[in-house]
């Protein structure tokens, strides 16, 4: 299962392939459950208690509680599933994206208005390691 993939050298990017899908199954199914209003209420009332109903790892639960999206991605979360968490929080895709890039929402918005992040210097991990 650990053969390298041609996209493994793309920096700052987690491709949701079977390696991740397996890791993240319960995390993502938990996210899916937030599509029901009653579940959203219960989750909001007590994150920890709701999470404890799921067969997730402690790391996964903590990452959810911390709203650490990069951590969730590394633990098998898929962005469309994770979106149910920040939607429950009333937050936008743009906000969530900014937290993953480590800048303020304002700075992120400014970057997007200026045409977005250029692919130059962002195609290969090696380019990131140089800096």
């Amino acid at each position, binding site marked *: 299962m650990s053969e390298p993939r041609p996209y493994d050298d793309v920096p700052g*990017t987690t491709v949701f392939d079977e390696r991740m899908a397996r890791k993240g199954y319960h995390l*993502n199914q938990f996210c899916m459950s937030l599509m029901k209003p009653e579940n959203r209420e219960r989750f909001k009332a007590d994150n920890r208690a709701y999470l404890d109903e799921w067969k997730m790892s402690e790391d996964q639960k903590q990452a959810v509680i911390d709203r650490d999206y990069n951590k969730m991605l590394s633990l098998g979360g898929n962005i469309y599933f994770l979106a*149910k968490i920040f939607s429950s929080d009333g937050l936008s895709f743009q906000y969530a*994206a900014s937290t993953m890039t480590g800048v303020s929402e304002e700075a992120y918005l400014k970057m*997007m208005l200026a045409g*977005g992040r250029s*692919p130059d210097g962002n195609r290969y991990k090696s380019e990131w390691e140089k800096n």
Partner: protein
Amino acid sequence: MARITAGVATSHVPAIGRAIDTDQTQADYWKPMFDGFEFSRKWEESEKPDVVFLVYNDHATAFSLDFIPTFAIGVAEDYAVADEGFGPRPVPAVEGHADLAWHIASSVIQQDFDLTVVNKMDVDHGLTVPLSLMFGQPEKWPCKVIPFAVNVVQYPVPSGRRCYNLGKAIRKAIDSFSEDLNVQIWGTGGMSHQLQGPRAGLINQPWDKAFLSDMVDNVARLVSIPPEDYIREAGSEGIELVMWLIMRGALDDQVTELHRHYHVPASNTAIGHLILKNGNNS
């Protein structure tokens, strides 16, 4: 005989739906994006398609990880608008065309595409945002819709070439349907965007613009793009563009470009839009 009269490509960002539903299309941020669809709405008013075969992807809405079909065709009489977490979009329910959908499903399966046939599914922004962009805010959608969902979420996703060939199979199926119908095929999603990780916000304008051009007259290049190139060049969610190739495969080799629009940004995404009239007679 049913005939495919045109192909439409368009992005399908959720924030566009929100801008429409909350009446912000004329705000500074959104106006230039929506202006590019004014031609399209007028054009649809005169085209009056009977059916839109709408290629999109489900975004963890109808399909959880329990069940991920590579290709799913909707054969139902109607489809509810999904609650994606904020309540359903305030848009009309979607009416299907079960006769044509079943005909296509049967034909395409017999052409060795291993479809999942779906009788019940809620449709998310991937399907409703393109309808809003092309038809505005009617009481009722002006045509029937056949939803065709492609897995571009869980890898491996189908290759660009597989998608293009599927388009050819769909074309063959529609051409052999006996009822006289004006059918459009839409490919949605894209263009460059990445919603996740430290590289989020990636936009590749030269790459997108070349893609738009080659959709018209150099699709051979596009069908050869491997998945890792989409990810590297167009961001992790840029892979949605393989859905445009299903649309392109269903058109003649020669098409006439009626309209093109490109705008950055809509939320995290580069918006691309094309209207291609089928055949090279304008």
